[in-house]
């Protein structure tokens, strides 16, 4: 019986084989019969004999299997709607479906996709070649589609938040603290424009129905930073503490004031204290190395310079964001002695350095530093060369999470950001077995860090959980 063999999986060109197998029965049968779903559904056709029906069913089964395979590998299961068939075909479809289940090993037929009957798409073969999975295996759990336009956003998202989301996803607003402050300001606007609907109370309605969609939208534009997580937790707590009897306008004003105070205390004032402590640590004749651009490191260096200290700065930078360029330019404009190099110049420049100052995205409870990718390299080199590493970090960035590696928790930026237009990787998508990996953060072990400068004082990395408990969870 000339029937199509079960197709082998991972066949790069299933199309050809399918056509071949289908051509065979056609040829063998003398070609007279309308075979397979290539033709229009056989509603108007003459009745086929049982044997031929069987043949047809088998061929269709194969076609369906192929399509399911193609779907599975492209990673986008399509819902196939059964065409409106005659009872005959329906019966065969069910038979086909059952048969398919028996052969379950070769394909995994989703419950969703119903057996297709005469759908034209199937046999003509998936027009698009099977798409290769371009995600890196280790980080597959972190890949997430970023929202890059406001089209399609839920109607509950406030315009200020829409704008903020866009700014975050294209790095206009970049940096843990900048995003934190911008988010809180946007939430202030949301609260100001909020009015409790009848029958609801502010404390119960605001968080779940108003703040949550905003948070979801922002997360879809770019994953939340850890400091933002802490701030939102605080905000939700504040909202829940609002007395049910206070009139709306007063409650809203109180919340906005609380947000202002929070920013003032945890960011503005903290930055002042940290900049001063760090500037105090800088001596005349020092050579300070820093990586990428941290707003607090910049501030400390500027403050030390304004206090009249004589020192040099080496800014280490890396692709793709090249944030260090902005820092170097800003410092040079103010008259500091700045040297700029890329990360491949790290080992050469570390020899002259006296101190390394790094910024942080977050500090984990096991004393590890979670910061821009490349920071761990700088800290490691500094350790090898016996140079002290200082981390400047506000307590709002402390988290109770523990990081053992840079893989479990990270952010993967779109791989296309790594591609230089006109460069050798331009058509990287077409190159087989090539994946581009663009992680945004890495984790530096605690033993490479000598001191953390916070607004609560200078502490060793082992004291992070203590300060986190006192500062972020004491409420």
């Amino acid at each position, binding site marked *: 019986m000339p029937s199509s063999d079960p197709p082998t999986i991972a066949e790069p060109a299933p199309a050809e084989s399918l056509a071949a197998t289908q051509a065979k029965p056609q040829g063998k049968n003398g070609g007279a019969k309308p075979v397979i779903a290539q033709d229009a559904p056989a509603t108007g056709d003459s009745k086929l004999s049982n044997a031929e029906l069987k043949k047809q069913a088998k061929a269709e089964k194969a076609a369906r299997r192929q399509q399911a395979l193609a779907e599975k590998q492209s990673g986008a299961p399509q819902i196939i709607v059964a065409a409106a068939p005659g009872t005959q075909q329906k019966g065969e479809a069910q038979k086909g479906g059952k048969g398919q289940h028996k052969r379950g090993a070769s394909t995994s037929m989703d419950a969703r996709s119903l057996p297709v009957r005469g759908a034209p798409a199937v046999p003509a073969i998936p027009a698009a070649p099977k798409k290769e999975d371009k995600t890196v295996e280790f980080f597959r759990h972190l890949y997430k589609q970023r929202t890059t336009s406001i089209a399609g956003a839920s109607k509950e998202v406030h315009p200020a938040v829409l704008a903020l989301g866009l700014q975050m996803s294209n790095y206009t607003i970049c940096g843990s603290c900048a995003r934190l402050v911008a988010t809180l300001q946007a939430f202030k606007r949301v609260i100001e424009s909020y009015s409790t609907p009848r029958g609801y109370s502010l404390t119960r309605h605001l968080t779940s129905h108003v703040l949550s969609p905003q948070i979801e939208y922002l997360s879809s534009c770019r994953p939340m930073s850890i400091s933002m997580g802490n701030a939102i937790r605080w905000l939700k707590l504040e909202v829940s503490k609002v007395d049910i009897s206070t009139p709306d306008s007063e409650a809203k004003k109180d919340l906005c004031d609380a947000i202002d105070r929070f920013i003032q205390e945890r960011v503005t004032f903290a930055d002042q204290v940290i900049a001063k402590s760090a500037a105090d*640590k800088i001596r005349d004749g020092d050579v300070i190395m820093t990586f990428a651009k941290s707003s607090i490191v910049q501030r400390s260096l500027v403050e030390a310079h304004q206090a009249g200290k004589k020192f040099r700065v080496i800014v280490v930078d890396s692709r793709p964001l090249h944030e260090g360029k902005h820092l170097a330019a800003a410092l040079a404009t103010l008259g500091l002695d700045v040297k700029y190099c890329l990360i491949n110049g790290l080992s050469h420049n570390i020899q002259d350095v006296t*101190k390394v100052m790094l910024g942080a995205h977050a500090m984990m409870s096991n004393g590890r530093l979670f910061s821009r990718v490349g920071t761990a390299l700088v800290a490691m080199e500094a350790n090898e060369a016996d140079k*002290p590493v*200082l981390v400047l970090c506000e307590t709002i960035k402390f988290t109770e999470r523990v990081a053992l590696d840079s893989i479990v928790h990270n952010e993967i930026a779109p791989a296309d950001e790594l591609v230089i237009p006109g460069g050798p990787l331009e058509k990287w998508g077409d190159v087989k077995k090539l994946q581009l990996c663009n992680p945004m953060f890495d984790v530096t072990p605690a*033993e490479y860090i*000598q*001191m953390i400068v916070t607004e*609560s*004082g*200078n*502490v*060793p990395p*082992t*004291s992070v959980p*203590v*300060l986190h408990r*006192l500062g972020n969870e004491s409420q």
Partner: protein
Amino acid sequence: MASLGNIPQNEKSKSFDIVETYNRLLHEDPEITMPVAAIEALIELLVQSSADTVYEFLDLVKTQSDYLKSRIPNSISLSAGTDLFQRYMISSMKPTSTGDFETVRQHLLSNGRLFVSRAKAARERIAAYGRHFVRDGSVVLTHGGSRVVGTLLGKAAEASKTGGNVRFKVIYVMNEARSAESKAVVSLLRAKGVPVATISEGAVGYAMGKVNLVIVGAEGVVENGGIISRLGTYQIALLAKAAGKPFYVAAESHKFVRLYPLGQYDLGIDQQVIEFETEDKKELTDDERKFADRTPTEEYFGSVDLPKPNAAVDAVDFTPPALVSALITETGVLTPSAVSEELISMWY
């Protein structure tokens, strides 16, 4: 208010010299440590001052502390005491900030004296915790004139008299600059029946193989759990780490100082240990030699003009926390990272 009969209210505050008081206290009591002497001096200031308000007094304490630190060459240790006293004052004044200053002052005085007596008892408690580290047949390496370590080893030696349990030996690293002090310590130990070997500082690496544990004292314990102690401690710690021997520090908790050095040269004091010269040094005068040779009990002579601050005799060095196995304090045995938590709980 309650009678203030015990406290002499005199007008001598202007003529109160804190440096002189501090030196006198150190001189009078051989058992006292520098931070405790500083605290006692400040308590006397409290007694004799004519400040009427809380803030006036706080201000006075601060200025007097700074003055004292500037006048004493090795100020790290006593700054632990002054900072602790200021901290204690602020915390005890808070609840009664609107109350009568005199009651506050009384309260401070009585608690201050309690603190001083507790501090003296601390040494005994450290010895009680620490002596179990000295096992039968072990060899202990130590150096410097720390009285805490002396008490600890003495207590460990005493157990052998009663039950004959702990028999241990001591290798003591002699300090050429302070030979009289070194000899005194060695004699004290030998008098208790402990066999002591004296070696020079150059032989520490050689001797480390025969050592089971190292115990030293400290002048200050810094925020990350590192210690500031007599010059020479750092290299002993390095050698102990390289040889895999545990390095213990015995220090009272009032020595915890709010300092966070990043290295040897970041201590905030000017130590003239490394001086490049192209001419040979002149000979020491008699007075200078006597000063260089002093024992702990005759720490400071009020009459002699102090030579340059922190000459080699007075010099200290910084031992980073990675080299310290444990700190034996009167509140228990702590790891270096626990020091920061203690400080946070005290100061936050």
